[in-house]
Protein backbone atom coordinates (compact mmCIF):
# COMPACT_ATOMS: atom_id res chain seq x y z
CA UNK A 1 0.00 0.00 0.00
CA UNK A 2 1.35 3.40 -0.94
CA UNK A 3 0.35 6.44 1.06
CA UNK A 4 0.82 9.98 -0.15
CA UNK A 5 1.14 12.57 2.56
CA UNK A 6 -1.01 15.68 2.47
CA UNK A 7 1.56 17.94 4.11
CA UNK A 8 3.41 20.00 1.54
CA UNK A 9 0.58 19.94 -1.02
CA UNK A 10 0.25 23.08 -3.13
CA UNK A 11 -2.40 24.46 -5.48
CA UNK A 12 -0.83 26.13 -8.49
CA UNK A 13 -2.62 28.46 -10.86
CA UNK A 14 -1.44 29.66 -14.24
CA UNK A 15 -0.77 33.40 -14.23
CA UNK A 16 1.12 35.28 -16.93
CA UNK A 17 2.49 32.01 -18.27
CA UNK A 18 3.95 30.92 -14.92
CA UNK A 19 2.69 28.52 -12.29
CA UNK A 20 1.85 30.45 -9.12
CA UNK A 21 1.39 28.59 -5.84
CA UNK A 22 -1.43 29.83 -3.63
CA UNK A 23 -0.34 30.81 -0.15
CA UNK A 24 -1.80 29.89 3.22
CA UNK A 25 -3.91 26.99 2.00
CA UNK A 26 -5.58 24.99 4.77
CA UNK A 27 -7.35 22.29 2.81
CA UNK A 28 -8.18 21.21 -0.73
CA UNK A 29 -11.15 19.16 -1.84
CA UNK A 30 -10.49 17.21 -5.01
CA UNK A 31 -13.39 16.73 -7.44
CA UNK A 32 -15.86 13.92 -7.23
CA UNK A 33 -15.88 12.92 -10.87
CA UNK A 34 -18.95 10.95 -11.84
CA UNK A 35 -20.12 8.97 -14.83
CA UNK A 36 -23.42 10.42 -16.01
CA UNK A 37 -26.25 7.90 -15.97
CA UNK A 38 -29.83 7.80 -17.16
CA UNK A 39 -32.84 5.77 -16.11
CA UNK A 40 -33.28 2.96 -18.62
CA UNK A 41 -36.55 1.48 -17.34
CA UNK A 42 -39.29 0.26 -19.65
CA UNK A 43 -42.96 -0.47 -19.15
CA UNK A 44 -42.46 -4.18 -19.68
CA UNK A 45 -39.68 -4.47 -17.13
CA UNK A 46 -40.77 -7.21 -14.74
CA UNK A 47 -38.07 -6.49 -12.15
CA UNK A 48 -38.65 -4.17 -9.21
CA UNK A 49 -35.23 -2.61 -9.50
CA UNK A 50 -34.84 0.52 -11.62
CA UNK A 51 -32.16 -0.02 -14.30
CA UNK A 52 -29.65 2.71 -15.11
CA UNK A 53 -27.14 2.99 -17.92
CA UNK A 54 -24.09 5.14 -18.50
CA UNK A 55 -24.59 7.96 -20.94
CA UNK A 56 -20.94 7.96 -22.01
CA UNK A 57 -20.21 11.32 -20.43
CA UNK A 58 -18.35 12.22 -17.25
CA UNK A 59 -19.17 15.07 -14.91
CA UNK A 60 -15.84 16.58 -13.89
CA UNK A 61 -17.05 18.06 -10.61
CA UNK A 62 -15.24 20.89 -8.90
CA UNK A 63 -12.15 21.57 -6.85
CA UNK A 64 -12.62 23.62 -3.71
CA UNK A 65 -10.64 24.58 -0.68
CA UNK A 66 -10.04 26.89 2.27
CA UNK A 67 -7.20 29.25 3.02
CA UNK A 68 -6.27 32.01 5.41
CA UNK A 69 -7.18 35.06 3.39
CA UNK A 70 -4.52 37.68 2.77
CA UNK A 71 -5.89 40.13 0.21
CA UNK A 72 -2.42 41.47 -0.55
CA UNK A 73 -0.84 38.17 -1.50
CA UNK A 74 -2.69 34.87 -1.42
CA UNK A 75 -5.92 36.01 -2.99
CA UNK A 76 -4.05 38.06 -5.59
CA UNK A 77 -3.24 34.87 -7.41
CA UNK A 78 -6.82 33.63 -7.29
CA UNK A 79 -8.07 37.03 -8.35
CA UNK A 80 -5.69 37.02 -11.28
CA UNK A 81 -6.81 33.56 -12.19
CA UNK A 82 -10.45 34.64 -12.01
CA UNK A 83 -9.80 37.52 -14.35
CA UNK A 84 -7.70 35.63 -16.87
CA UNK A 85 -10.02 32.61 -16.72
CA UNK A 86 -13.13 34.71 -17.24
CA UNK A 87 -11.61 36.38 -20.25
CA UNK A 88 -10.46 33.21 -21.89
CA UNK A 89 -12.90 30.78 -23.50
CA UNK A 90 -10.31 28.32 -24.75
CA UNK A 91 -10.33 25.20 -22.57
CA UNK A 92 -6.75 24.33 -23.51
CA UNK A 93 -5.38 27.73 -22.60
CA UNK A 94 -2.84 27.72 -19.81
CA UNK A 95 -4.48 30.70 -18.19
CA UNK A 96 -7.42 28.69 -16.90
CA UNK A 97 -5.59 25.50 -16.05
CA UNK A 98 -4.44 24.62 -12.54
CA UNK A 99 -2.61 21.80 -10.87
CA UNK A 100 -2.55 20.33 -7.39
CA UNK A 101 0.93 19.03 -6.50
CA UNK A 102 0.60 16.52 -3.68
CA UNK A 103 2.92 16.34 -0.70
CA UNK A 104 5.28 13.84 -2.32
CA UNK A 105 6.21 16.57 -4.80
CA UNK A 106 5.69 14.36 -7.83
CA UNK A 107 2.02 13.36 -7.98
CA UNK A 108 -0.14 15.98 -9.68
CA UNK A 109 -3.79 16.53 -10.51
CA UNK A 110 -4.17 18.97 -13.40
CA UNK A 111 -7.47 20.42 -14.50
CA UNK A 112 -8.98 23.17 -16.64
CA UNK A 113 -11.64 25.34 -15.09
CA UNK A 114 -14.71 26.82 -16.69
CA UNK A 115 -15.09 29.29 -13.85
CA UNK A 116 -14.05 29.99 -10.32
CA UNK A 117 -15.47 31.58 -7.20
CA UNK A 118 -13.79 33.15 -4.18
CA UNK A 119 -15.44 34.12 -0.92
CA UNK A 120 -14.49 34.73 2.66
CA UNK A 121 -15.61 34.33 6.26
CA UNK A 122 -15.04 36.73 9.13
CA UNK A 123 -15.87 35.15 12.48
CA UNK A 124 -15.03 36.05 16.06
CA UNK A 125 -12.31 33.88 17.48
CA UNK A 126 -10.90 32.85 14.13
CA UNK A 127 -8.57 34.28 11.51
CA UNK A 128 -10.23 35.57 8.35
CA UNK A 129 -10.63 32.66 6.01
CA UNK A 130 -11.26 32.44 2.32
CA UNK A 131 -12.89 29.68 0.37
CA UNK A 132 -12.73 29.03 -3.33
CA UNK A 133 -14.34 26.69 -5.79
CA UNK A 134 -13.39 25.91 -9.37
CA UNK A 135 -15.78 24.17 -11.76
CA UNK A 136 -13.91 21.72 -13.93
CA UNK A 137 -14.03 22.04 -17.69
CA UNK A 138 -13.90 18.41 -18.78
CA UNK A 139 -12.09 16.03 -16.43
CA UNK A 140 -8.83 16.34 -14.59
CA UNK A 141 -5.69 14.32 -15.24
CA UNK A 142 -3.64 12.48 -12.61
CA UNK A 143 0.03 12.14 -13.38
Amino acid at each position, binding site marked *: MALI*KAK*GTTLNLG*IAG*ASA*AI*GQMISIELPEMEVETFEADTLDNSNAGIPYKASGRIEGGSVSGDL*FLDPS*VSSTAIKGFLISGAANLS*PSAASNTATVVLGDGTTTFTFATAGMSLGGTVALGEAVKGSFSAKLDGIGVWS
Partner: protein
Amino acid sequence: MKCKLFQDTPAAPTLPPNTDILPEGSIIDDPSAYMLVQIGMAESADDECTKAVNRTPAQLNQARYEYSRTKKGIHPDDFTRYDRGEIDGYNMDGSDVPGPNPAEEDEEESSIILPENYNEEDD
Protein backbone atom coordinates in the same frame (compact mmCIF):
# COMPACT_ATOMS: atom_id res chain seq x y z
CA MET B 1 4.40 44.95 -18.90
CA LYS B 2 7.46 42.96 -17.84
CA CYS B 3 8.71 41.17 -14.75
CA LYS B 4 11.78 39.06 -13.98
CA LEU B 5 11.50 35.73 -12.13
CA PHE B 6 13.47 35.30 -8.90
CA GLN B 7 13.95 31.55 -9.32
CA ASP B 8 13.26 28.57 -11.57
CA THR B 9 9.49 28.37 -11.89
CA PRO B 10 7.22 25.76 -13.49
CA ALA B 11 5.42 27.05 -16.55
CA ALA B 12 1.67 27.57 -16.23
CA PRO B 13 -0.19 24.24 -15.98
CA THR B 14 -1.53 22.84 -19.23
CA LEU B 15 -3.53 19.84 -20.38
CA PRO B 16 -1.95 17.44 -21.00
CA PRO B 17 0.32 18.30 -18.06
CA ASN B 18 3.71 19.81 -18.88
CA THR B 19 6.98 19.82 -17.01
CA ASP B 20 8.38 22.96 -18.57
CA ILE B 21 10.48 25.20 -16.36
CA LEU B 22 10.94 28.95 -16.75
CA PRO B 23 14.55 29.55 -15.63
CA GLU B 24 15.54 32.06 -12.98
CA GLY B 25 15.88 35.50 -14.51
CA SER B 26 13.33 34.85 -17.25
CA ILE B 27 11.56 37.99 -18.42
CA ILE B 28 7.79 37.59 -18.64
CA ASP B 29 5.98 40.10 -20.81
CA ASP B 30 2.29 39.85 -19.99
CA PRO B 31 -0.53 42.17 -18.87
CA SER B 32 -0.75 40.14 -15.63
CA ALA B 33 3.00 40.23 -14.94
CA TYR B 34 2.48 42.65 -12.03
CA MET B 35 0.57 39.94 -10.15
CA LEU B 36 3.66 37.72 -10.10
CA VAL B 37 5.51 40.61 -8.47
CA GLN B 38 2.75 41.18 -5.91
CA ILE B 39 2.78 37.48 -5.05
CA GLY B 40 6.55 37.56 -4.50
CA MET B 41 7.64 35.41 -7.44
CA ALA B 42 9.30 38.12 -9.50
CA GLU B 43 10.53 41.70 -9.60
CA SER B 44 9.40 44.46 -11.92
CA ALA B 45 11.37 44.73 -15.14
CA ASP B 46 9.90 47.96 -16.49
CA ASP B 47 8.26 51.14 -15.22
CA GLU B 48 4.79 50.07 -16.30
CA CYS B 49 5.02 46.99 -14.10
CA THR B 50 6.46 48.92 -11.14
CA LYS B 51 3.54 51.33 -11.32
CA ALA B 52 0.95 48.57 -11.56
CA VAL B 53 2.47 46.64 -8.62
CA ASN B 54 1.83 49.54 -6.24
CA ARG B 55 3.70 48.05 -3.24
CA THR B 56 6.41 49.38 -0.93
CA PRO B 57 9.85 47.69 -0.94
CA ALA B 58 9.07 46.30 2.53
CA GLN B 59 5.82 44.76 1.28
CA LEU B 60 7.60 43.24 -1.70
CA ASN B 61 10.32 41.76 0.53
CA GLN B 62 7.64 40.27 2.77
CA ALA B 63 5.79 38.85 -0.24
CA ARG B 64 9.00 37.29 -1.55
CA TYR B 65 9.69 35.68 1.82
CA GLU B 66 6.12 34.39 2.10
CA TYR B 67 6.21 32.96 -1.42
CA SER B 68 9.36 30.99 -0.60
CA ARG B 69 7.34 29.48 2.25
CA THR B 70 4.32 28.87 0.05
CA LYS B 71 6.35 27.13 -2.62
CA LYS B 72 7.59 24.62 -0.06
CA GLY B 73 4.00 23.79 0.83
CA ILE B 74 4.37 24.86 4.46
CA HIS B 75 1.02 24.48 6.24
CA PRO B 76 -0.19 27.55 8.18
CA ASP B 77 0.08 25.52 11.40
CA ASP B 78 3.84 25.36 10.81
CA PHE B 79 4.41 29.00 9.81
CA THR B 80 5.84 29.91 13.22
CA ARG B 81 8.30 27.02 13.18
CA TYR B 82 9.32 27.88 9.61
CA ASP B 83 9.78 31.54 10.52
CA ARG B 84 11.99 30.52 13.46
CA GLY B 85 14.11 28.46 11.06
CA GLU B 86 13.22 25.16 12.71
CA ILE B 87 11.88 23.53 9.55
CA ASP B 88 12.53 24.04 5.85
CA GLY B 89 9.87 21.76 4.39
CA TYR B 90 8.62 18.21 4.61
CA ASN B 91 10.26 14.91 3.70
CA MET B 92 8.51 12.27 1.61
CA ASP B 93 7.47 10.47 4.80
CA GLY B 94 5.87 13.61 6.23
CA SER B 95 8.67 14.33 8.71
CA ASP B 96 10.24 17.78 8.85
CA VAL B 97 13.20 18.91 6.80
CA PRO B 98 15.35 20.66 9.43
CA GLY B 99 15.80 24.38 8.92
CA PRO B 100 18.91 26.47 9.60
CA ASN B 101 17.94 26.82 13.25
CA PRO B 102 16.55 23.43 14.31
CA ALA B 103 14.68 23.26 17.59
CA GLU B 104 16.48 21.63 20.49
CA GLU B 105 14.75 18.45 21.51
CA ASP B 106 13.21 18.56 24.95
CA GLU B 107 14.89 16.33 27.48
CA GLU B 108 12.67 13.40 28.19
CA GLU B 109 10.89 14.08 31.44
CA SER B 110 10.66 11.38 34.07
CA SER B 111 7.20 10.15 34.89
CA ILE B 112 8.26 9.62 38.53
CA ILE B 113 7.23 12.45 40.80
CA LEU B 114 9.45 12.73 43.84
CA PRO B 115 8.28 14.21 47.14
CA GLU B 116 9.58 17.70 47.90
CA ASN B 117 11.57 16.51 50.93
CA TYR B 118 13.22 13.62 49.03
CA ASN B 119 17.00 13.36 49.53
CA GLU B 120 19.14 10.89 47.56
CA GLU B 121 21.67 10.57 50.45
CA ASP B 122 18.98 9.11 52.69
CA ASP B 123 18.83 5.92 50.56
